[in-house]
């Protein structure tokens, strides 16, 4: 048994803050069924950062929309699994109760800050709303705390800018606004969905640093959804790699990047343009395309693109199981072989850390 399974799930202990098991989400439109999420296991503890890594279409954002209850529900449905937050299965709660918990104890940072902010209300109004609804503060006090929080995330000239509208801020500033709103009432868990994708590199570094500082300060759990390995490597403690709606590998960030146990992870690492030693190597992208989630290939979903695929891979879906020293898990029939046969991976991915 690995450490994952031994955790005590009682609230307040050192158990996981959020433990997702076997989550399945389907989208049904016009006769087609799209299997967006197919059996995900994820957990986060207090004070740690877990990066959920995957291409677009791997189901990473949908997983957390389903957990928070903001999934577009006529097409999308949760068809299986549990999501235990602080000991309670969120899917068992009434929508109202769940909404209350989610806003208060879980903060969400959205990918595109401009569309996540309501264009017709001032930033101050939207910020104060958090305090007024969740903490029942009066208008003046809410405004004061909003200003404090905005200043904390680095908005200059707060006194004046609190009455500005979202479109009057730059992209990086807007992302800070969204972070401020997510952290306003001191949640235990923060989910950041591609927080730096829409930003340029210098701003990205600032935002990541801000997130790291805030986490250190408040000790919350942080889930970082991203498709960028660099971002994941920058601030994550653990990584979950997703593909076609499933977790294919998870473990500590250093060991995972140092020696991947799943061909997909290995492929991702090899397709990165290297910095130092690997400069003269040709880029080797993973061949093929991610699968159409309405028609996921049988067996292992990655097998059509996998250089090591064999007949077994087509027939039998590999389960996520501990490999190597038991501190990490991978969903591949040949994980052990992969680990044994790849000492070189450690050398030319030095830029990952």
């Amino acid at each position, binding site marked *: 048994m690995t450490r994952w399974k031994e955790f005590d799930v009682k609230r307040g202990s050192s158990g996981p803050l959020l433990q997702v098991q076997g989550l399945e989400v389907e989208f049904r439109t016009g006769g087609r069924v799209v299997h967006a999420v197919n059996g995900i296991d994820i957990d986060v503890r207090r004070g740690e950062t877990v990066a959920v890594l995957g291409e677009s279409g791997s189901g990473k954002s949908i997983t957390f*929309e389903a957990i928070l209850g903001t999934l577009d529900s006529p097409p999308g449905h949760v068809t299986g699994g549990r999501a235990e937050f602080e000991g309670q299965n969120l899917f068992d709660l009434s929508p109202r109760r769940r909404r209350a918990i989610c806003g208060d104890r879980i903060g969400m940072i959205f990918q595109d800050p401009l569309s*996540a902010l309501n264009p017709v209300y001032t930033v101050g109004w939207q910020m104060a709303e958090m305090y007024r*609804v969740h903490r029942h503060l009066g208008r003046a006090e809410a405004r004061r705390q909003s200003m404090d929080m905005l200043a904390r995330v680095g908005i200059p000239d707060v006194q004046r800018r609190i009455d500005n*509208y979202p479109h009057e801020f730059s992209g990086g500033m807007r992302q800070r606004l*969204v972070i401020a709103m997510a952290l306003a009432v001191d949640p235990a868990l923060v989910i950041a969905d591609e927080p730096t994708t829409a930003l340029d590199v210098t701003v990205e570094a600032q935002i990541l640093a801000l997130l790291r500082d805030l986490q250190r300060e408040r000790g919350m759990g942080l889930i970082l959804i991203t498709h960028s390995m660099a971002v994941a490597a920058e601030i994550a403690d653990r990584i979950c790699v997703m593909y076609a709606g499933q977790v294919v590998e998870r473990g500590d960030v250093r060991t995972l990047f140092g020696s991947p146990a799943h061909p997909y992870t290995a492929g991702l690492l090899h397709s990165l343009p290297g910095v130092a030693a690997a400069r003269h190597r040709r880029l080797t992208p993973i061949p093929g395309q991610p699968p159409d989630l309405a028609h996921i290939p049988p067996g292992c979903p990655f097998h059509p693109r996998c250089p090591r695929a064999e007949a077994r891979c087509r027939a039998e879906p590999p389960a996520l199981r501990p490999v190597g020293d038991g501190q990490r898990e991978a969903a591949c029939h040949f994980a052990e072989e992969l680990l044994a046969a790849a000492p070189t991976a450690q050398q030319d991915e030095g830029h990952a850390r």
Partner: protein
Amino acid sequence: MLAEFLFRRVFYSCIALLGLVVAVFLLARLTGDPSVLYLPDTATAVMREQFREAHGYNDPIVVQLGRYVWNALHLDFGMSLRQNVPAMDAVLQAFPWTLRLAGVTVLLAMIVAMTIGPLAAYRPGSIFDRIASVLSLAAASTPDFWLAILGILVFAVHLGVLPTSGTGGFAYWILPIGVLMFKITGTTTQVVRGSMISSLASPYVKAARAKGMPENRIIFLHALRNSVISAVTVAGDQTRGLINGAVIVESVFGWPGVGKLMIDAITQRDFAVVQAAVLVTAACIFLLNIILDLIYAALDPRIDLH
């Protein structure tokens, strides 16, 4: 910026209005003997000649145009041949009645649309939504004069609870406003509903839900505020329907507004009044459009006018 915007809009409206005045003039003068428009068919040739001399219709066109425009700017459209008062006075007297009718109608229509629209949008496809949609569709297909007549038939003739026409106490308002409201409410409700559906599906509403905001707050504070903007956008189109409807409602119910004045003037061949009524209404429409633009700009902070 605001002053500049206002100035530009007023300027263009004035030009349009002026163009309209000239167009009416040309229409009237170039299509034959103007006395035909003013005098009844029974007038003799001698009377027509006298009329033409007296009103300067034998002068060159350009002179006539100049005189006409000059008069128009002074709001002088001639005398109403039926009522023996200046045409403009007749219009100004009728105007407040139409304003009252239209004003109350729009107010009620907005209230209804802003209540039913969001509720229908919240559960699209539900029974409530479908009934609302069917009613709106029926409202858009019903001829208002027929509805007015039906209203009179049912409520005044058969049930005897409401008066058939005229003005007076509260009861006299019910049928005219009810009929006028019907179509406008239907269209506006559908517009608000459509806009609310897209607001409720927007990313900022999803974000607000993730923030843990309760549903009522989401519907009426977050989403509706955005939808009001598109409702105002179509309000301009609605005023056209409102005026068309008002003309008919006033005629059927004997409501002494500008619409009834216009129709009566047509049947009585009182061209001066017809002109005055049409031009005054046009001026009001232009003014209303400017006001709507201002409201729209005030509501949407993304527009920078101030």
